[in-house]
């Protein structure tokens, strides 16, 4: 039971941390003590935290490297923006909060559908091939979205593929992306989404399904022999992550007046991967902290921004070398054993 209690405490700390951060930031914003640019970062921070935690579900808990996570985010972003535009222009729904909620749900559902469609072929592959194919799918999604035109008028939505001549106001203008978006995303919504993501990922990973997912990660053949249907559980992790990424995307899209698909390039998938790796693969709390800090830091340190990607790259390599080199690993473990507070919790569950 000791282990269970420790896990419970660990999760509690993660939730408490997020709540405290939200309360402090809200107080600062209300007190007018937060700079304008930092205030503008609050919603994106929430989005990237959700992205990192959901990617951690795939990389850390399911053990598959997905390089197309930003693709799901873009699906969510555009479907969220279109849904919101449709609700406003076609159904005259004025309530921004309700519109935001519906848009986020729609973003999640559509990204989830994309996740299922992509997951079916992709999850049959292994290792490097899986990574490269998720990358390919991410790029295909972006390519295809660049050809989509959507407009809205009183009759509803009109869609065109490679065909911009549509009636009504254009919501999505091919390579120009979504334009004239009503910014309805709020920090509170971001906070709720982060909490929702934490509940889903933490509860999933310490349940029967989560254990099955981790068993497949540790030893696929043994898991199969124990009667665990491999495809089902890989799919479960992949699609759940896609849904969460889609929701984050919808929130992200509704936070800017224009959204282009270039914002969801392969680089963004790598960015999110950096958050996950830096926070510790498999550690949910690590992902939260890394995503929040690394989104804020460049904002705080303007001079640093030029070197940001370079530093990310170096950090990525160094973290991998430090955690995977048997020599260094042994040394680090020995060090950890000596430090009373640094002892890693047993088991592969996320912190």
């Amino acid at each position, binding site marked *: 039971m000791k282990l269970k209690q420790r896990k419970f405490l660990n999760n509690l700390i993660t939730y408490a941390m997020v709540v405290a951060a939200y309360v402090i930031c809200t107080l600062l914003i209300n007190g007018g003590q937060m700079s304008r640019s930092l205030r503008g970062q609050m919603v994106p921070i929430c989005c990237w935290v959700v992205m990192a935690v959901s990617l951690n579900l795939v990389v850390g808990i399911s053990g598959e490297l997905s390089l197309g996570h930003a693709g799901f985010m873009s699906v969510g972003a555009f479907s969220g923006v279109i849904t919101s535009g449709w609700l406003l222009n076609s159904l005259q729904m004025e309530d921004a909060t309700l519109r935001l909620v519906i848009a986020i749900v729609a973003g999640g559902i559509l990204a989830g559908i994309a996740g299922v469609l992509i997951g079916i072929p992709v999850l049959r592959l292994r290792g490097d091939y899986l990574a490269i194919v998720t990358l390919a799918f991410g790029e295909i999604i972006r390519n295809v979205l660049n050809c989509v035109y959507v407009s809205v008028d009183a009759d509803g939505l009109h869609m065109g593929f490679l065909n911009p001549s549509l009636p009504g106001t254009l919501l999505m203008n091919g390579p120009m992306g979504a334009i004239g978006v009503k910014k309805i995303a709020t920090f509170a919504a971001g906070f709720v989404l982060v909490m929702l993501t934490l509940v889903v990922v933490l509860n999933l990973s310490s349940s*029967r399904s989560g254990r099955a997912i981790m068993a497949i990660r540790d030893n696929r053949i043994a898991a199969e*022999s124990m009667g665990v249907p491999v495809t089902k559980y890989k799919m479960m992790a992949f699609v759940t992550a896609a849904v969460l990424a889609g929701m984050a995307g919808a929130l992200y899209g509704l936070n800017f007046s224009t959204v282009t698909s270039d914002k969801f390039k392969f680089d963004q998938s790598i960015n999110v991967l950096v958050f996950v790796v830096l926070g510790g693969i498999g550690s949910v709390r690590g992902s939260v902290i890394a995503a929040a800090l690394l989104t804020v830091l460049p904002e705080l340190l303007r001079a640093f921004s030029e070197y940001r990607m370079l530093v990310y790259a170096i950090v990525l390599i160094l973290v991998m070398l430090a955690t995977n080199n048997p020599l260094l690993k042994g040394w680090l473990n020995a060090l950890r054993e000596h430090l009373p507070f640094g002892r890693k919790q047993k088991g592969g569950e996320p912190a």
Partner: protein
Amino acid sequence: MTTKLNANTRMVPVPSDSIVPERDLGKRPILETRHLGIEFGGLKAVDDFNLTIGPTEIAGLIGPNGAGKTTVFNLLTKVYEPTSGTVLINGRDTHRMTVTQACRLGVARTFQNIRLFDKMTVEDNVRIGLHNQIRYGMMTGILRLPAFWQKEKRQHEQALDLLSIFDMQDLADVTAGSLPYGAQRRLEIVRALATNPSLLLLDEPAAGMNPHETEELMRNIVRIRDQFQIAVLLIEHDMRLVMGICEGICVLNFGKVIAKGTAAEIQNNPVVVEAYLGKQKEG
């Protein structure tokens, strides 16, 4: 332990290629293979393999290295689809079944090169074995519905129960990968038992164990059979273990069965002695 059999009892009522202890006579065999074979690029790794195992039998599969023993296990658990012949489990044809389906039919196995879920705890390893025994859905888990707490508790209790077979309850919270070798082998057996099998396949369970540990393992295998009323088929190079607890032994060489019988019969079989035991005695 060894049940003495004479030539007559082996003939009725199951096919002649079986060595079934008396208590299982008249019952439907748990495992039946007929002319089972598999080819890898023209090479017959297993050829015309016939074996019948009664519901509570302990059977041994022996043979020199590379004889195709593990391949037989892979065929029985559907890792490989046979190129000829059939595998019947509990009377059901396993043609075109997946590994997962075979497990649900009641075949559980351990692996020659241990395959535990290294980063998970000992208890969670056993809980994976219980995956299809105590079930609840993904949403129940995420929303922490009452069924979640109730079934988690049952899983926990049952896992500790199973671990107590080898006195491993105290290790429940330890990471499986950090267990000593012998304990890892025992955990694999517990995990396999958790799937509620009717046939347990053990691939070299005593490999790397000292004589004392092997002795204990032998007692435990028999105990498991008696307690769970299941059949055990084991691959083993340790002849003391095989001769000590196996009621029937099948000798494989170059993918073909060269002899079948009780321990005494196998030990005195000139073909086996020549192919296998002769070398063993020297070592």
